[in-house]
């Protein structure tokens, strides 16, 4: 085998067409990495009972793949190849190191795993057998801080490097590395289980998972700080995770709702910014720039999940976005539908943020005066919430109450760290003179 490898390598050096093939194989390998990393790590964690060992093994397997695939081409099932290679490497290593005390338990676990009866395995695996789901629930366990949940999910399921996650959240790499180490240590030492929660706990825990994926998307959609508004890589990763969730839990309408919401929001990315990088409000966007494929898919998902008759916040939020992108309605009809949806959400979850969204829709249906009155009732609970000040400023501006509008834009600016949003608000403030 080794001789074959070296012969191939010698052959390839003088042959430019082989170089192209190799580059293509390398790209394909990277593609496989993106798509399969989470599944492989998740399988290895169950097999090894240890997150760090699983990551090491999978990375080692991809290193082997990067050496072999450009020479020999991709195996028929690349993901399975990676998992098997990682498993074999891990077993070899554990055998070599079995005498060392800290590896003893892992070796024992492997032995247990290979000798378990099918019944024992079934009991351990529960009703859902995809390991990625287990891993998602472990990464999004409520005993971990939300920031750690997001980081772990991106690292273990998305295969993002620590440096990439640190860049996305604008923290030093060392800080992010420490956050990940601490979270993994807590999973291990506090005994956070590696399983999908039981029926009774599932609704609460699923909400935690959905919230984490949404948080990843939101951080990509409106980066909370910094010069660029959108971090497309985070949006893409959140969409991928949402798809995985729907694939694994097709009967959870809120998971479907989340995917639809992300698709319908993401569909507007090209219309959201002008060439100079300034922000375009929804009502001013060029609808021709919206991504038709994503809108069609999102709208179909919304119809499918709402038919189930158990609405939840993500489904309603998705339906709101479906209404905004419905070309069979005129502007007023769209806002009427949006208003009705927020009325429904307010009945299900009467929070000030939902009430604010409803007030914004009300302003479009019944005029800025009515919207402003509704927003004014929320000034106290949402005094530190930037969108309240931005929405209130906009309505005051439309009512030509310039002095009040200016002071409200200033209040919004104080709560805005994102450069693109700042530019937008400063522009509006300047127009008031």
């Amino acid at each position, binding site marked *: 085998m080794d001789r074959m490898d070296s012969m191939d390598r010698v052959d390839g050096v003088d042959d430019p067409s082989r170089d192209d093939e190799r580059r293509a194989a390398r790209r394909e390998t990277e593609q496989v990495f993106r798509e399969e990393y989470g599944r492989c790590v998740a399988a290895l964690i169950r097999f090894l009972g240890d997150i760090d060992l699983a990551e090491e093994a999978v990375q080692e397997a991809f290193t082997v793949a990067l050496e072999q695939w450009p020479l020999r081409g991709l195996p028929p099932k690349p993901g399975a190849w990676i998992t098997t290679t990682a498993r074999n490497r891990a077993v070899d290593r554990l055998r070599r190191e079995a005498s060392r005390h800290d590896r003893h338990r892992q070796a024992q676990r492997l032995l247990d795993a290979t000798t378990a009866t099918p019944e024992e395995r079934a009991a351990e695996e529960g009703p859902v057998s995809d390991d990625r789901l287990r891993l998602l629930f472990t990464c999004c*366990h409520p*005993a971990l801080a939300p920031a750690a949940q997001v980081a772990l999910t991106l690292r273990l399921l998305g295969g993002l490097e620590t440096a990439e996650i640190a860049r996305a959240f604008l923290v030093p790499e060392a800080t992010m590395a420490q956050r990940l180490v601490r979270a993994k240590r807590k999973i291990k*030492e*506090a*005994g*956070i*289980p590696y399983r999908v*929660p039981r029926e009774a*706990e599932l609704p609460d825990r699923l909400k935690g998972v959905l919230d984490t994926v949404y948080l990843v998307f939101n951080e990509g959609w409106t980066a909370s700080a910094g010069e660029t508004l959108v971090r497309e890589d985070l949006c893409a990763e959140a969409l991928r995770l949402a798809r995985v969730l729907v694939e694994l839990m097709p009967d959870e309408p809120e998971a479907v709702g989340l995917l639809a919401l992300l698709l319908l929001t993401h569909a507007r990315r090209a219309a959201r910014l002008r060439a100079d990088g300034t922000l375009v409000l929804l009502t001013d966007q060029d609808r021709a720039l919206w991504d038709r494929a994503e809108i069609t898919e999102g709208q179909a998902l919304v119809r499918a999940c709402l038919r189930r008759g158990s609405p939840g916040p993500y489904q309603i939020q998705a339906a709101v976005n479906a209404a905004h992108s419905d070309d069979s309605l005129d502007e007023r009809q769209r806002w009427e539908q949006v208003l009705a949806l927020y009325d429904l959400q307010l009945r299900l979850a009467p929070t000030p943020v939902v009430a604010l969204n409803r007030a914004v829709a009300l302003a479009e249906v019944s005029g800025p005066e009515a919207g402003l009155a509704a927003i004014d009732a929320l000034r106290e609970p949402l005094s530190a919430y930037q969108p309240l000040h931005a929405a209130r400023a906009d309505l005051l501006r439309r009512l030509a109450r310039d002095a009040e509008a200016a002071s409200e834009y200033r209040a919004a600016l104080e709560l805005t760290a994102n450069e693109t949003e700042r530019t937008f608000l400063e522009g509006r403030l300047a127009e008031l003179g």
Partner: protein
Amino acid sequence: MSATKMYLLSVHMVEGQEPPSEETMQTMYADVDRFNQKLQADGAWVFAGGLLPADVATVVRTQPDGKVITTDGPFAETKEHLGGFWVVRAADLDAALALAAAGSKACQGPVEVRPFQDMPEQ
């Protein structure tokens, strides 16, 4: 063959906080008692106890030269002190958190869940 871990479920008292009414105390005692019995029946019980206020605590400290210093008062200069605790066995953190939720309901206060170090294998 189900492996278990040990967890400390601790309840903290805040100094100077209004003590609950006699009636609330009685309910609390009865609820905690019932919770303790359930822990024992389920095999989760290792040990539990309520502590007297921290101002009757004494700290004993051995100095490098072997001399023993005894001082009055609790170890930490804080307003929150350990008021009571359970030591339980649970399969994993989720099981421990479920016990803590029941304990928190019984004692009507927050419960901190902290895993013990693994015991050396026999």
